[in-house]
């Protein structure tokens, strides 16, 4: 099924959502991206991607956690679905498999 393939940026964001747990909302993901992957993207780009992931059924969301700095607006907290986890595993397996077949690259690297 084509929809289970995920792009590199999507994968990154899925991983971050898992990592951030209860705090996985748009702006926090953006911050984490900067921190862990050294990538600066616009807020719109993050929102666009998580919306796409939700449409693909890889994440679910619910609203909660309004703060003063948000002007009393709630956050949309994302959590990964079973399908999302599966997609992540699959993506990792493919890569690990490929890496193991090219030992020279692995040797040179380490």
């Amino acid at each position: 099924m084509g929809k289970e393939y995920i792009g590199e940026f999507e994968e990154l964001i899925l991983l971050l959502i898992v990592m951030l747990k209860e705090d996985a909302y748009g702006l926090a993901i953006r911050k984490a991206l900067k921190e862990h992957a050294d990538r600066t993207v616009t807020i719109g780009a993050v929102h666009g991607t998580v919306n796409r992931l939700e449409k693909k059924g890889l994440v679910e969301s619910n609203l909660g956690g309004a703060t003063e700095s948000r002007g009393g607006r709630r956050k949309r907290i994302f959590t990964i679905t079973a399908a999302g986890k599966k997609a992540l595993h699959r993506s990792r397996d493919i890569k690990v498999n490929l890496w193991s077949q090219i030992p020279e690259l692995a040797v040179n690297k380490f």
Partner: protein
Amino acid sequence: MKPQKNIPPKSADQFLTWFCKGELLEEIQGDLHEYHEELTERPKWKRNFLYWFHVFNFLRPFAIKKSRSINSNFSIMFRHALLISFRSFKRYTSSFFINIIGLSTALTCATLIYLWVNDELLMDKFHENGDNIFHVMEAMEFPSGTVVGGNSSGIIAPLLSEEMPEVEHAVQVARHLDNTTLSFDDKTIKADGHYVSKDFFGMFSFPLIEGSKNNIWDNPDAIVISETLANNLFGSTYGSIGQNINFRNEKHYTVSGVFRDVPNHSSEKFDFLLSFEGHTASQAYLLKWSSQSVAVYLSLYPDADVQAFNEKIHDFIGKHSERHSYRIPFLVKYSDEYLYGEYEGGVQSGGRITYVKLFSIIGIFILVIACINFMNLSTARASRRLKEIGVKKVVGARKATLTFQYLMEAVVIAFLALLLALIFVFILLPEFNAITGKQLGISFNLDLMLTLFGITLLTGLMSGSYPALYLSGFKPIAILKGKLNTSVGEIWTRKGLVIIQYTVSVILIVSVLVVYNQIDFIQNKDLGYNKDQIIHFDVEGKMEQAEHMDTFLDQMRNIPGVVMASSTRTKLTGDNWGVGGIEWEGKSADDAIYFQHMIAYYDLIEVLGIELANGRSFSRDFSAENTKVIFNEAAIAHMGLENPVGKIIRFRGQNKEIIGVVKDFHFDSFHESVKPMMINFMPNVLSQFMVKIEADRGKETLKSLEKLYLNSNPGFLFDYKFLDNDFQELYASEQRVSILSNYFAGVAILISCLGLFGLAAFTAERRIKEIGIRKILGAGMFGIVRMLSADFTKMVMVAIIIASPVSYLLAKEWLNSFAYRIDLEWWFFVGSGVITLLIAWLAVGWQTIKAAQQNPVNNLRYE
């Protein structure tokens, strides 16, 4: 800096709410607000910019609201009309380009003019209490006529605020500190300043960065300086309070406050302020009725009636000083002075508002010309779209729908033109600023955008209205039968519109010729003195003493390259005060004439190259020159003296012998005629050195002069100006008008010609078969060209005939504001007409020659 409340720009939020899907809005806006909160460290503009950036970044398919009425009739029709518009642009490329070039040029001009006009209208409007601030003017009723001046006596301020209950504050401002030498440590700076009384900062909104307006003037030797001046002298504004600034190497003033730099929108410019109260302690004459050199401002309580107040103070000066009862004070609103600053015979007679109006009208004219092109081309091309209209009507389109479609087409073109125009404006703005001497910028604020949007929409609707109503009114049966008689009325409308275009163009060309010639006349007119190669600089410090000045003048003369040197107190570019009280033999009792007063030193008349009509000038070879006097011819004529040299007059109780008469020379703007002038020899009050230098050694000479000056007068700067530059500044506004009207006239002509070009192409195309047949029957190329251009020639001729008297009246009106002016020559009008005609022929000629050269076989074979 005080912590500011950190609020994201409201307009950005509104924009987001407008386009964003409702279900996503909460989280997106929340994230954005939180993000904005994190940016507290950055400057405000950057925060807002980033916020806007991220808001725009949400313009992505997932976030944008689905149009609610996506399937409604209206939006389908709308999209259809848009589609048809683009198709018709593609099909009729040439008329599309003519329209878009014309409209975008016109919109560029209109935008630039709008920016300029808007900026002019904002001048002096930033004072919070602006509606209640007034300037006390004086109308001085002389027998020769009423003269209005902006200066009064300092004493009037406290008297008015004591006696008139309407007055809240009264402020005195003495502008006596231009180009003043200030220094701190080893830094020396020249700066402009005023003496102001203590309520100045309470009345005008010049915000203070350091110091408080309540106690800033407690010390009579206080100085309040601008941010820039503080930065230049001390390196920063912080800690500048309490520093001592050396004033003209005479005296120290203590900084008691720093104000934010005077904004561009203030007509009042100053770098520092001193206490008026402190100044009058030694210069008490400023408070006397006999001195008229202080500007007085009042703020009235909001409910005061200015009209009534003016009536109340009509005799105010007379009541306090009988001798000055000819001076009638009246109030004008401070914020209106910039635009309405000119008086003629005591009556308000315009000012810069004239230019504001003039350019607004030109802007509108240019837009109208471009709109007319659009109307003409689209109605002319109607015949080619007849089938489309016929079919649409048969299928059931109503008149309203078709009207909408054509209006839509026009509006779309107008907005495409706006985009182009904005690009042009960006490119042209620096150049435009250089010409107008302003710092205009396009800031994307709501006001500007709404105005541009409004102008463009209006342009689109205006240019689309006629074709839309005209095209949609056809009868479908007649169209499809191919029988469309162009009605006489329609042709007349089209011709009428072309005539209007050309009338406006001719008027603009005449105006350019007149303005250009007048400016040229002024700048090259014989002034009666030679303003070239003369520099002038301030007499300061010890130079104010006669013996130092004499040595210095001598030393200067010894510098190779210096032709002559002298000093004076008179500005040769006008704005000098007259003196009264001169008595001569045979003076009539009611003669209250004021003489212009020039104060001269030895050689001044020679330095300036003023010609003597009679007698001699002041010279070192004679003694007691201060008991002698020189007049100009206008003065002698007024006094009615025959053989004036040797006669005695009385001035300020002193007998003075006339030793010479100089020929009249212009020491004032050309808006004024040469007034009677008295030249006195007064060594103690000289304020300007005047030095004539040789043209070809200017640079070295100036260098040696600077060296000499710095050595002889330590602590002061050698800050010179060329006299002819001053003269150019005097006519800066006319110069600007001249340059701008050049450009605008060019644009108007260009747009008109574009229209004519399009019309000619169209006519040639429609008559292609006729041309073919004529050629077969033996018509020559010349005959055909003549046949095709005859119509246009007639239209342009009619335009010239209409435009000539109109432009004559306009030019006469403008020239009347000059006392010395050119005559309106016949060739201004004939010349403009010929130019217009030639350009029109050029535009038409190319098309007609092309049409006449075609092979008739190609044109006729399909029949």
